[in-house]
Structure formats: C-alpha cells, structure tokens
C-alpha cells in the first residue's frame, strides 16, 4: 500500500482541504466498521469444526467413528499464503484409557512428501479436554510449493463413543 498523502496536505491548514480530508476519513471509517474486528490484527485463528472433515461421520458437534475400528479423517487448511502458524489447539472427549485420538497438522509437496508440522493428541481419559502444540516445524506457510491439511485418527476400544473430536483451532500470523 502506498503511504497516505494526507499528512503533507495538513501542513497548509487550508480549511477547504481539511473539509475534503474529513470527508475522506469519514468514508474510510464507515467502510472499516464493516470489517470484522479480527482482521485488524496480524494474529488470526482458523477453526475447523467436525463437519469440515472428510469423510464426516457423527454429529455436527463431534467427529465420531461409525464402527469400533480405526478411522482416518482429513480437512483442508486454507489460510493466507506466507502466514506463520504459531500454535494448534485440539478439542477432545475420551472416556476409555485404551482408546486413542490423534491429530496432526500436515504439509505435503506435490510429490507426496509429507511431514507433520504439529501434533496435538488426546491425552487424558476423563472426559472433555483440549491439547495445544506451540512447537511448529516449518511454520511459515508457502502454498506455492505445498498443501496443508489436518489429519485425525480415531481408534475406539469398546464403543464408538470412546473417543470423539470437537475440532481444531489453528493460530497463525499474517505477513504484511
């Protein structure tokens, strides 16, 4: 974005010029009020709900297996190119110590070379909990070279309700 020219005009303190500036600023203010407040910050969050995962199973508020077997789910991660991921936070329900829930933020090039950038697995078996990972490898996103996605693997033990997934928040900083 080019620098504003308004400061230089104000040095003259010309009243008609000031009126025009005021009108312009009022217009800018009016338009900016329509912009979501979170966009005024470089720090943003993308939240992927259970319904965003393929194949989506379970209710709208939780990802849950259709059988007592290992199931894998994927969701696309689409944020502004060149952003930097700062952390991920996953939300779980688990009531069986043998059941497992795993979640990775993945990066792949177009020749299927895949790495895990962050991992936040279910880690308790006493109900609802959340898990964060702030140690992100290759945190700077480059959509020219890679694709990004979330991989969730649910492995129940005795019942499909043993382990459930309520979503993942990806925190990132926009490059400006």
């Amino acid at each position, binding site marked *: 974005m080019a620098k504003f020219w308004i400061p230089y005009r104000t040095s003259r303190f010309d009243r008609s010029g000031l009126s025009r500036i005021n009108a312009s600023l009022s217009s800018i203010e009016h338009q900016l009020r329509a912009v979501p407040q979170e966009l005024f910050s470089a720090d943003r969050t993308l939240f992927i709900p259970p319904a965003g995962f393929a194949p989506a199973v379970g209710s709208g508020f939780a990802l849950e297996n259709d059988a007592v077997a290992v199931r894998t789910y994927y969701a696309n991660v*689409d944020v502004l190119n060149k952003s930097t991921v700062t952390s991920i936070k996953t939300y779980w329900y688990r009531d069986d110590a043998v059941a497992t829930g795993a979640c990775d933020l993945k990066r792949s090039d177009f020749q*299927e070379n895949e790495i895990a950038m962050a991992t936040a697995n279910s880690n308790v078996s006493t109900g609802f909990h959340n898990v964060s990972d702030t140690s992100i490898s290759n945190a700077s996103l480059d959509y020219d070279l890679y694709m990004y996605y979330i991989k969730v693997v649910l492995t129940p033990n005795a019942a499909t309700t043993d382990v459930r997934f309520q979503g993942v928040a990806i925190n990132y900083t926009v490059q400006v």
Partner: protein
Amino acid sequence: MSNFAIKHYLTGKNSHNAVKFNRTLDELETALRYTTAEFLDNTTDKMIAPLEFTRSQISALTVTTGGNYITVAGSVPGPGNRAMTAVAKLTPPNGSIFTKLTGYNYFSDITAGVSSALTLTLHRADTNENEDTLATLNGTLVHNTYTTDIQTSISNATVDNTIYTYYLKLVFLFSNPTPGPKAVDTVKLLGARVDYQLRP
C-alpha cells in the same frame, strides 16, 4: 480498533495536534495493511487441495482421498470404459480474471492393455444449467512420474458471479479394448491451482 479521532485533531493548528494526526494516520495505515493483505498484489491464486474434490457421479470405481491426493481403484470391463467424475467449487472475487490452470498428477501404468486419462476442466454455469468450458487441461501421464501441467488458454476468463457459478471438474477415464475385466492403472491428482488477477 477504536473509533477514529482524526477529524478532531484537524480542527487545531498547532504542531502537537499535527503529531497526533500523523500518529493516527500511521495506525490507520497499519490497520489497512492487515485488512487488505490479500489484495496488496492484484495477482493471486487459489490452491484446490485433493480434499476439495467431491465425487459428482456414481461410479463403480472406489474413490480414495488421502490428505494429499485423490485416486480411484477397481476394474474396467472389457471391452469397455469406466470413469469417475469429481468437482470442486471455486469462489473467485467478482470481476477477477482467470489467467492459468495448473494440475499436479502421478501415474503408474500397472495394467497392460488399459489406457488411462486424467482431465481437469474449468467451468462456469448459469442457473438454467447452461455450462461453458473455460479451460481444459489433459494430464500428462508418464509411468512412475509426478507431472505438472499448465493451461493458460482460458475463454470467458472474466468472472461474473452475478450470473455464473464456477467450478473445476476432474475426470478419471479408463479404457479396456480387449475382452475381460482389468484393474485400472494408478492415477492420482495431487491438487490443482487456479491463478487469477483481481480487478484493480
């Protein structure tokens, strides 16, 4: 951001107010940089991940979508053909101009006598189901090779969201000219990219 107070500063004529005025303008500029980061460069692109393609027609072939590919498995009758079609929606800003379509694929020729094809097409359609093909990209299939294909010839390239919807169509097609069913080759789409230029 709190309310702008710039207009109040402008009523004064002393240097103190001028300093505050400049500082507020700096804050305003910073806010605009955050809100308009996507548009600082008027050329941009949209990566369509394999996950964004949804099967649009029933097919006897089994579709597998990993995090970084979409592929099919099964057999093709002989003599005969078998296809699987998937689509991914596009939401380019109104008035922008499509400039390039890119496809990434992998191919492994595992069955003698079966010919394979992968086609990506960019489409628009109105609400009367009138569909136009804006660009066609035939995947280059080389045994055990990852390939990138590019198409820059795009018709009706200017986006008009008031009339049309836009989408990508992916077709896997297998042909078997000899008698007896045969397993399909391994063909994977690893993603597609649509480049477009924003309206100034």
